[in-house]
């Protein structure tokens, strides 16, 4: 398969395809299959007649309704994960034609505009496969626990109105708060690699999403109470210093979260934290 992968993600390429999409065509969807965790994968192709404005998920539904491969062999329905179908939950993230994105917002017209065009679907490679296109993203959430990605409230009593937030901080925080924990930034990151051993998760690279969330909560009036603990975690093994500045994360982020700026900001945070701790800490 030689796909023009370098151009797949460009908006112009997708728009041009959409403009020339042939109505009533049949496309080929090649899916990487896998029967379960740790098992070897293989590819299966399906011929799918498509209608205008179809997306990858609706094609997968057609395969589920009629699981017969392109060469007429009966097979099992393809398994995938999805939720909102409007690119805000992140569940249907997969690798499409070699690059990661949400499959619900991936339009067939943009990727396979002509008769017989092929789309390749693979599960994300940085998470263990549960089955077919469905992966276990537990490590992603473990990273959020590592940075204590929440606002601590230690009582059930009414605490009154929250702290005031200025407009500039609000703007910065809003952009980061759009993160939907989909995993695109991790899939595209050359420093974040598949780690099957759960015990290694706490010392392996934490990932851009968690670094950004640490910044989000460190900037929060009440959330900043945990700032030293978040910075301690980001100073540790697999912390912000493990970033290799390939900056793929920010380019594949479907929500435009300022990931690389957050990495810079947290780099500054841990530098100051380390100096403070050296001179003032225990």
């Amino acid at each position, binding site marked *: 398969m030689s796909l023009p992968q370098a151009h797949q993600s460009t908006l112009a390429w997708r728009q041009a395809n959409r403009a020339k999409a042939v109505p009533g065509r049949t496309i080929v969807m090649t899916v990487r299959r896998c029967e379960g965790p740790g098992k070897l994968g293989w590819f299966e192709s399906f011929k799918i007649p498509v209608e205008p404005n179809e997306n990858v998920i609706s094609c997968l539904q057609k395969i589920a309704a009629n699981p017969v491969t392109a060469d007429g062999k009966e097979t099992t329905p393809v398994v995938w994960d999805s939720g909102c179908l409007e690119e805000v939950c992140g569940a249907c993230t997969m690798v499409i034609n070699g690059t990661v994105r949400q499959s619900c917002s991936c339009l067939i017209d943009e990727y396979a505009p002509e008769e017989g065009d092929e789309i390749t679907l693979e599960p994300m490679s940085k998470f263990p496969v549960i089955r077919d296109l469905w992966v276990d993203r537990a490590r992603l959430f473990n990273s959020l626990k590592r940075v204590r990605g929440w606002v601590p409230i230690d009582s059930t009593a009414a605490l009154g109105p929250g702290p005031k937030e200025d407009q500039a901080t609000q703007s910065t925080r809003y952009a980061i708060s759009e993160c939907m924990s989909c995993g695109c930034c991790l899939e595209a990151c*050359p420093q974040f690699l598949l780690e099957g051993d759960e015990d290694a998760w706490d010392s392996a690279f934490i990932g851009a999403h968690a670094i950004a969330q640490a910044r989000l909560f460190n900037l929060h009036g009440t959330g900043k109470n945990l700032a030293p603990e978040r910075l301690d975690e980001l100073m540790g093994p697999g912390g912000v210093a493990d970033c290799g500045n390939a900056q793929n994360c920010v380019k594949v982020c479907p929500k435009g979260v300022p990931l690389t700026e957050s990495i810079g900001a947290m780099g500054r945070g841990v*530098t100051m934290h380390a100096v403070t701790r050296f001179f003032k800490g225990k």
Partner: protein
Amino acid sequence: MGLAGAKTVSDRQSFFERHSFLLRRLHSLSGIVPIGVFLIAHLTTNSSLAWGRFALRGEGEGMSIAQGGVKYFQEEVSYINEQVPHLLLIEVTLWVSIAFHAILGVYYATTGKGNTAHYPHMDNWRYSLQRISGYLGIAFIFYHVATLRWGWTWLVPGGTQWSHHFSASTLAAAIQGSPEGWTALGVAVALLYFAGITLLVFHFANGLWTAAITWGLTVSVPAQKRWGLVCFGLGAGLMLAAWSSLGAAFMVDPQEARATEAEMILHEHGPEELQRIENKLEGRPPADEHANAGGEG
């Protein structure tokens, strides 16, 4: 199991894990100071082989560009080797820093896996190039230091031994393959040098750019772009210095350069000292008892 037997998190962590932050920052720092600062000084000095004629002012009257370059370069090298204090301490500091930066760098590079095939962005290419230039740079620096500093002449085509008294002529002979000029193996060495210095200058300029993010100096995207321009400018300047050093070493005639250098020693220290240095370099015993005793007293 009682609590007394329980291991704490820090007990289970390796040395690298317990000191990961400090080691990462020392790795970053060592690339800038002393290695990067030395690189700037080293390339500036070496490029004087190309532009030295114009810095000689009146002294260079009647000299060709090559001849003037040889003279100025030799003056610089003599200054470093004969007048800079604590030269050995400086050298050892550099060797230790380079070894530290190299060993940790290789270890860090193995924690990642490049993916430019799927994400062919410029930044991602730089990520991969930073690691490739690191690996190849280590090999080049080792060859460079081993042959021209530690005198492993068996690795030099033609077996030229570099001498700080005849800095330009022995450098040119070592790179061109023989004291008489170019040989086929010399071309191979020259290409190795071209690749080595080009990769290392890139490694420094790009490392300076990423270091600013690592330390938190540049945060916003515009700030990263601005600092990127500064690093690009510095990198371009150093690349020019590196290429002109090498270009000059390619073009200098080793024999003419040798004559210029011998003239300088003769002028500065007299014929006996010249004889002594040449004998030492050729591995001959001192010419006679009188010269030996009367030399430096």
